[in-house]
């Protein structure tokens, strides 16, 4: 198992509906927490990577602004985007910058103030999330695309709307425990099943909420990590994959190939398999996305994902706890910050600092973060 690059600090803002501050102040919340967690100062940082989906930013080129506001001049900085998976793409690039020897301590900061633009502007941008020449003209939205994946999964494997609702029920249970989540109410199976259809078969409660938020990871070389950190968490494996933006370019819709490709690469690099993972954070922007993740990551055979949730195996006490921080469904989904928030949860788990949601003795954790409707897939495997 490679132990070349470690995560020595993590931070996250509370995820909220409408953050009452600027993007720089939002970013500061995660950054200051991560830096204090790492126990380092600005001058220790060798470079920063700023992750956000720029269509939500009014500030052009926010990396420059963030480097100044956070006190990271004159070190290099740049922006990095892969929509919802931006900050785990940042993790990958940060890893490479350190492994290459170019830098020794790298800050990966993710933020998104979804409420920076009006909801009308946001609706307009959502329409442009697909191929604007060939799919957007039909009136496409993220829920519609994931709904088509759900329908394909139902048709091939017999998965049901109730199976998806069970995933939301689990998410709300853990959302009640997470003080930084935007959605903290417990929902019953009946409430989930009775919510209105957004894009059939997906209902209101199959979808995560938008939120404003920030996240931050401090990465360090092995030498620096051993010097600075009492509890470094090592990046054991990284994988990344892509699939076509258009639905017409995909072989099937009952899984996300970008995630399969990313998982395979990450498992090989770490020298572990799905059975070795003690706790996982997966990209549940919709309930069906978590269901597909179970299968694409190898926690269940293709088509057997529903059995995992029916039998409660992805709860804290189950054989593979998934999204026990409430997931995107409860925390909310501030696009550029989401991946870093997932990583933070796993880091706290591996350090034994996860509180109410601690998986006893967790040694190896996994993060699965997807950009767009399976356009970009990142998987990271972390260990003590």
């Amino acid at each position, binding site marked *: 198992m490679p132990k070349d690059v470690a995560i020595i600090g993590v931070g996250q803002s509370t995820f909220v509906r409408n953050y009452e501050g600027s993007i720089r102040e939002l970013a500061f919340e995660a950054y200051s927490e991560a830096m204090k967690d790492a126990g380092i100062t600005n001058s220790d940082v060798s470079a920063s990577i700023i992750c956000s989906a720029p269509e939500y930013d009014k500030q052009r080129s926010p990396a420059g602004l963030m480097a100044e506001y956070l006190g990271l001049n004159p070190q290099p900085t740049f922006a990095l985007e892969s929509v919802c998976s931006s900050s785990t793409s940042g993790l990958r690039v940060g890893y490479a910058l350190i492994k290459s020897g170019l830098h020794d301590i790298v800050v990966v900061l993710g933020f998104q103030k979804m409420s920076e633009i009006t909801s009308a502007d946001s609706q307009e941008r959502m329409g442009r999330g697909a191929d604007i020449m060939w799919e957007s003209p039909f*009136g496409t939205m993220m829920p519609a695309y994931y709904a088509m994946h759900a329908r394909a999964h139902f048709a091939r494997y017999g998965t049901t709307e109730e199976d998806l609702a069970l995933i939301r029920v689990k998410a709300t249970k853990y959302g009640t425990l997470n003080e930084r989540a935007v959605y903290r109410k417990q929902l019953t199976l009946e409430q989930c099943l009775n919510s209105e259809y957004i*894009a059939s078969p997906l209902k209101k409660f199959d979808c995560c909420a938008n939120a404003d938020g920030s996240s931050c990871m401090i990465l360090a070389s092995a030498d620096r990590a051993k010097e600075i950190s009492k509890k470094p968490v090592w990046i054991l494996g990284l994988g990344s994959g892509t699939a076509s933006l258009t639905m017409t370019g995909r072989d099937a819709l009952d899984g996300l190939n970008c995630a399969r490709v990313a998982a395979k690469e990450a498992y090989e690099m770490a020298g572990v398999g799905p059975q070795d993972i003690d706790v996982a954070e997966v990209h549940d922007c919709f309930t069906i996305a978590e269901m597909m993740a179970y299968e694409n990551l190898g926690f269940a055979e293709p088509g057997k994902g529903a059995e995992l949730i029916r039998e409660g195996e992805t709860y804290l006490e189950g054989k593979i706890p998934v999204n026990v921080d409430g997931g995107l469904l409860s925390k909310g989904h501030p696009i550029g910050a989401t991946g870093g928030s997932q990583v933070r949860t796993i880091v706290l788990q591996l350090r034994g600092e996860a509180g109410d949601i601690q998986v006893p003795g967790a040694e190896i954790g996994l993060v699965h973060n997807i950009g767009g409707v399976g356009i970009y897939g990142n998987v990271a495997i972390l260990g003590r």
Partner: protein
Amino acid sequence: MGFEKFGHVSFTSQTKTDAFVEYLVKDEIRATKCRKCGRVFFPPQADCSSCLESDMDWVKVEGNGKIISFTKVNYGPTGFESDVPYILALADFGEVKVFGRFSKEIPEEQIKVGMEVKIQAVSLPNGQVSYQFIRD
């Protein structure tokens, strides 16, 4: 004629494949086919990513397609508010897959994954042109 004529709402007007719209007006749905390697592209591409050439023919998308998946959309993005609900679908026509909408005359209850459909050009009330899936 520009590409802005295509679709319920247009997002872009310029492409080397704007002949697609001219065919659509003549009730034909066409794909592009690489003259060098024979690969067929739908949506149409001006350039072949297999052999990196840009010499294309226009070929008809015909026959029966099979529905891979579909969804009834109740909330649309900006520009589609008055249009909902509508049904989006992906269909497999063998050599190519096609993404589009179902005819509004077909209710969701009658649509199944695996059902056979045909594809048809349509003129929209707002003067735009598009295509839709209809029952075989």
